[in-house]
Structures are given as structure tokens and as C-alpha cells.
């Protein structure tokens, strides 16, 4: 059997890579995808602990996380389409009309 | 060597099964194209391929050779990685879905090991969900193919086709929920086992309680596999050739094989979930129906021999009687060896029903006109999805009523 620590360390690494992608990338869609990567890392931790403790609560919560991620993706991509239409660019640094 | 074989027996059995099934599926695909061209041609009062071999039977071979030797051009400015990935993805996913389907109930006992007909283990608890997962990933092959060709018509065709596939995927999965509620399991073997009946076998099949579910599933499956009447994204007169316009030779053949393989998979699913899979429609007491495979194969083999002797070309006069003799010998084997006969009953019924569904697919290709794209999307969202949801609601009510007031 694979120890649960291994899964949680993998989840931490993926979460860290998601954070790095969020900070480093400049395309709005890629930034949004890094949020999905972070959510996936958290799902992995949930399922790992669900298996370790022998309860199914973690897996039920993973289902809810996936549903919320779907809703968020739908609305977020709608906003991204509007930004692309209004600013004619997908570079997040061009969305700066509220800057001083 | 023998210890290596015996210690890794499962692995070697699986590898042999995979190789065999791959070969069989690809051959069936090739001859399905021949079958389609012949049947559509005869429906249109013409002959179809009849020159390349006897009755055109070597036409798939000629097509394969043509695909291998055609010039393989890549459009300028295409994204190379995605352009090569798309047909690979489509084909790999379509062929993987065949691995989950069980082809017979009983295992073969060989060298002390039980070999089940079908690659996935028989206790795969998420059988149908795994099939839907592979179907869900199949959208990528088409979307990426359309986009990576760097050209207008493929992009439009790819976008339309992927939008169509994800819309009808919802109705596809919803229409199966009724069957799952009745069977209580995702396992394909359990679903078939749930359809047995003590009287005539046909009354236990899921088609009778789930007629609406079957209609929704069949229509959604045709839309999923991009066949007529839902094949606007790849229609010749509309969008040049849709998402596979810029694909030449072997990559186009990969898309082709993927489409026909998903057709075979969907026919398998229809028979397993709604028509009893490998169960016979006759009562179990009618043991004389066990001779039905032989009763079909023997006369057919004799007819092939008789037709081959009178054929025009010399090549046909040699090949057709040989094929006919093989078929007759197979029919004779089933009469002479009773345990082979009982073993072959399950696969015989399954394969016959799959063949009937494939014929219905081809029949629709020869008969129906295609939907316009907005009619297609309106039909999927406004008619089919509510119908499948109504099916789920009615099925749940009936199950609850049976639990509450039915026989204890």
C-alpha cells in the first residue's frame, strides 16, 4: 500500500505549482486553469485522507468541489469572453483601466 | 521459460487477448465499411464495390493500401503537435472503449486458467461509467483536429461537432440512468444478468420497461458518433469535409476507424443495456434453439460455395468456395461438439444483436436526410434532454411504488 504521506506531499507540490502558474503567467485563461490545478490538488488530498480514515466523507466533498469548480468555470469563462471583447486582448496586464 | 510463463500468466493472457481483440476489431471495421457501401448501394439500386475481389470483398484491403501510400501533407501554419495528436487521441480512445465490453458470460478453461471473453476484469464495478468517461474524452479528438488545421472550414466543423457531442452526451448519460436504477449496478454483467426471465427470455429484456430510455439513448448515440442524420459537421456538401478536411491518407483513416469503432461500441452498449446482451429471446426450456448457430452457418456456407462455383472470375471461383467451406466446417463443429455449442450460445446472441444494430445504422445512412445545425441543437436540448429526464422520473416513481405496494 502507498502511505498517505506520499499522496499529501504530491498534493502540496501540485498546489505549489498551481500558485506559481497563477503568479507567473499573463494570459487570463492560463491563470484560470492554474486555479483548476489548485482545486485538483486539494481534491487529491481529500481522497487520500478519505482512504486513510476509511470514511467516505472526503469523496463526497470531492464531488461538491467538482460541481462548484464547474459552476465557477462557466461564469469565469463568460467574464473572460467579455474581457476579450472589450479590451481586445487576453493579457491580464491590459485590464488596467482602474489603475491610478 | 515455463516458470516465467506461469508466474506472469495473467499478464500474458491479457496481452494475447489485447492483440487478438485489436486485430478482430480492426478487421471488423474494415469489413463494416464494405458492408455499408454494399447495403447503401443496394438501397439505391446500384451494385457498390464488386470488382476488387469476389463481391468486392477485397475493397477494404485496396482502401487500406491506398491510405498507406497517399501523400501525407501537413497544412502550413498548423500546430504540429496538436495536428498529430488529434487523430491519435480519437483512435486510441475509440479502441480503448472496446476493452470494457464483455463478449460472453462463461470463461474458457485453458491450462488451468479462466480466460474471460473481454479484456476488462468481469467485476469492474464502474463498467458503464468507464465507457462514458472514454466517450467524454472523445470530444477532444474532434475539437483539436478542427482547430489545429489552421483553416476556416475545419475550425467551424470542429467547433460545431464538439458542441453537438457535448450536448448529446447529457441525454446519453441520462437515458441510461433508468436501466441503472432497475439493475442496481454499473457492472455490465450484472445489468445483463438482471434481464433474465423465467418465461420467454424476451420479456425480461430492458426494452419493455425502458422504451423511452432506449429511444433517447439510440438517438443520442447516433448524434455522439456523428452519423447520419446528425453528421452535418462532416457532411461533404456543407463544410467541404468538416473537421478532417486537412487530414490526408493515414490520419484520415484513423478518424474513419475511430468513427466506425465508436459505432460498434454504441451498438454493443445498446444490446447489453436494452436487449439482454447475450441472453436468448427464447425460453430456456427450448434447448433445440441451441442449434441455431449451426442452423444459420451451415446453409449460409453451402450457399457461398454454390455461389462461388458459378462466379465470373477465376479468383472468385477459388476464394469463395474456400470461405464457404470454412463457414460450413464451423457450423459442423458446433453440432459435433456440444460443450463448444453451449459455450458459443452467449457470444452468438450478442454478436447477432450487434450486427442487427449495425445494419440499422447503415440503413439510416441510406435513408434519412440530415438535420440542419440549429435544428440539431434545438432537438438535443429542448426535446431529447427533457425526455430522458422524464424517463428517469417515471422509472424512479415506478420503482418506489413497487417497493412500497408491490409484492414483498
Amino acid at each position, binding site marked *: 500500500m*502507498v502511505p*498517505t504521506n506520499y*499522496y499529501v*506531499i*504530491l498534493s*502540496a*507540490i501540485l498546489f*505549489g505549482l*498551481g500558485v*506559481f*502558474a497563477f*503568479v*507567473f*503567467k*499573463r494570459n487570463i*485563461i*492560463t491563470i*484560470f*486553469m*492554474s486555479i*483548476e*490545478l489548485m482545486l485538483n490538488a486539494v481534491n*487529491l488530498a481529500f*481522497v487520500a485522507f478519505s*482512504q*486513510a480514515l*476509511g470514511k*467516505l*466523507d472526503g469523496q463526497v466533498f*470531492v*464531488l*461538491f468541489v*467538482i*460541481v*462548484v*469548480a*464547474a*459552476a*465557477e*468555470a*462557466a*461564469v469565469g469563462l463568460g467574464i473572460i*469572453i467579455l474581457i476579450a471583447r472589450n479590451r481586445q486582448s*487576453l*493579457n491580464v*496586464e491590459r485590464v488596467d483601466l482602474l489603475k491610478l | 521459460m515455463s516458470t516465467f510463463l506461469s508466474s506472469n500468466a495473467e499478464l500474458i493472457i491479457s496481452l494475447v487477448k489485447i492483440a487478438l481483440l485489436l486485430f478482430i476489431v480492426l478487421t471488423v471495421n474494415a469489413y463494416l465499411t464494405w458492408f455499408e457501401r454494399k447495403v447503401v448501394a443496394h438501397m439505391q439500386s446500384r451494385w457498390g464495390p464488386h470488382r476488387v475481389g469476389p463481391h468486392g470483398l477485397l475493397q477494404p484491403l485496396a482502401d487500406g493500401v491506398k491510405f498507406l501510400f497517399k501523400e501525407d501533407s501537413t497544412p502550413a501554419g498548423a500546430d504540429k503537435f496538436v495536428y498529430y495528436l488529434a487523430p491519435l487521441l480519437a483512435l486510441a480512445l475509440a479502441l480503448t472503449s472496446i476493452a470494457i465490453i464483455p463478449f460472453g458470460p462463461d470463461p474458457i478453461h485453458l491450462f488451468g486458467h479462466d480466460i474471460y471473453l473481454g479484456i476488462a476484469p468481469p467485476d469492474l*464495478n464502474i463498467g458503464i*461509467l468507464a465507457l462514458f*468517461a472514454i466517450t*467524454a*474524452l472523445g*470530444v*477532444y479528438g474532434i*475539437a*483539436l483536429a478542427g482547430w489545429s488545421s489552421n483553416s476556416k472550414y475545419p*475550425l467551424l466543423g*470542429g*467547433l460545431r461537432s464538439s458542441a453537438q457531442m457535448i450536448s448529446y452526451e447529457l441525454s446519453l*448519460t441520462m437515458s441510461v440512468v433508468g436501466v441503472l436504477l432497475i439493475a442496481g449496478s*454499473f457492472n455490465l454483467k450484472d445489468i445483463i444478468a438482471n434481464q433474465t426471465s423465467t418465461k420467454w427470455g424476451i420479456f425480461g429484456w430492458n426494452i419493455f420497461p425502458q422504451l423511452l430510455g432506449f429511444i433517447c439513448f439510440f438517438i443520442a448515440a447516433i448524434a455522439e458518433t456523428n452519423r447520419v442524420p446528425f453528421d452535418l459537421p462532416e457532411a461533404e456538401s456543407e463544410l467541404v469535409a468538416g473537421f478532417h478536411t486537412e487530414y490526408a491518407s493515414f490520419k484520415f483513416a484513423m478518424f474513419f476507424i475511430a468513427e466506425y469503432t465508436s459505432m460498434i461500441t454504441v451498438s454493443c452498449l445498446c444490446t447489453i443495456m436494452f436487449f439482454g446482451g447475450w441472453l436468448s429471446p427464447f425460453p430456456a426450456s427450448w434447448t433445440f434453439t441451441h442449434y441455431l448457430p449451426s442452423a444459420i452457418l451451415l446453409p449460409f456456407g453451402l450457399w457461398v460455395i454454390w455461389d462461388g462455383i458459378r462466379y465470373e472470375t477465376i479468383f472468385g471461383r477459388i476464394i469463395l468456395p474456400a470461405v464457404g467451406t470454412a463457414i460450413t466446417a464451423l457450423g459442423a463443429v458446433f453440432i459435433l461438439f456440444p460443450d463448444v455449442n453451449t459455450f458459443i450460445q452467449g457470444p452468438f446472441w450478442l454478436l447477432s444483436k450487434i450486427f442487427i444494430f449495425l445494419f440499422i445504422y447503415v440503413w439510416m445512412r441510406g435513408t434519412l436526410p440530415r438535420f440542419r445545425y440549429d435544428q440539431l441543437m434545438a432537438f438535443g436540448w429542448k426535446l431529447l434532454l427533457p425526455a430522458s429526464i422524464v424517463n428517469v422520473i417515471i422509472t424512479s416513481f415506478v420503482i418506489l411504488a413497487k417497493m412500497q405496494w408491490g409484492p414483498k
Partner: protein
Amino acid sequence: MTAPLVVFFVLAALAILGALSLIWQKHPIHSALSLIVVMVALAGLYLLMGAEFVAAVQIIVYSGAIMVLFVLVIMLLNAGIEEHTSISKLAGVPGLLLVIALAGFIAATIARSSETVQAAMQTGAISSTKGISNMVFRDFVYPFELTSFLILVAIMGALVLAQREKS
């Protein structure tokens, strides 16, 4: 080196390579494909842990529907290769430090924990799907209804946001 451990390392390497590829690729569609690879690898890990229903839902919903949405939007908006200004290259350095600090802190805390949470043996009494459906429709039925409402709100929001103005 037991078989589950080997499978774990292969899938974990695949997931990490996919995440690194997400960061490294210049074109958003390649990043999307890398993210799909990560999700499929994670579904394999869920299967390894015995959570078969969650693995199937991950592939059907997450990589088969949500990522399709991403890919279609990237195609629709014709996203090109992304441009990096000097500010973004400067932000890479603190980003890298942040990541190493975060991941390193979590990993070190876990590695140092003396009582390793050993995986409990699968009881096998309640299969994954039956158990999950029992929990969702009995203990968690209220959040379940709320999520259906949430999806309805999301659908309406997406429709309103993406429609063209009637000029």
C-alpha cells in the same frame, strides 16, 4: 518496490510533468492539454486508492466537460502565444520563492509527523458508489440541493454574460 508503489510514482511523475508543462508552454492550448494530462493522472491515482466513482466523475465532468469548455473558449477567442513584459519576468522570481516556501513547508510538516496515517484496509462492505450515494442523498441532501441551485445560477449568469448586446 511493490506494484502499487511503482504505479503511484509513474502517475505522480506524470502529474508533476503535466503541471510543469502547464507553466512552461507558451500557447494556452498546450497548457490546457497539459492540464488534461494532470487530471487524467489524478484520476488514475484515485483508482489506485480505490475511489472508483470519484475517478470516473473526475474524467467525465472535470476533464470531459470543464476542460472542453476551456478548450472551446481558447479556440473561440483565438488566443495566441502569450507575451511576457518585463514586469512579469520580474514577478517570476518572488513567485518561485513563494512556491518553494509553500510546498516545502507543507511537505516538511507532513514528513516530520511521527504518526504516519496508515491507509485503513478497505472494508469492502459498502462499495464506493453505494456508500457515496447514501451519504449524498441522506446526510448531505441539503448541500446537494444547494449545488443544483448554484448550477442554475451559474447557467443564467453565463448566458447573460456571453450574449451579444441587442443593438
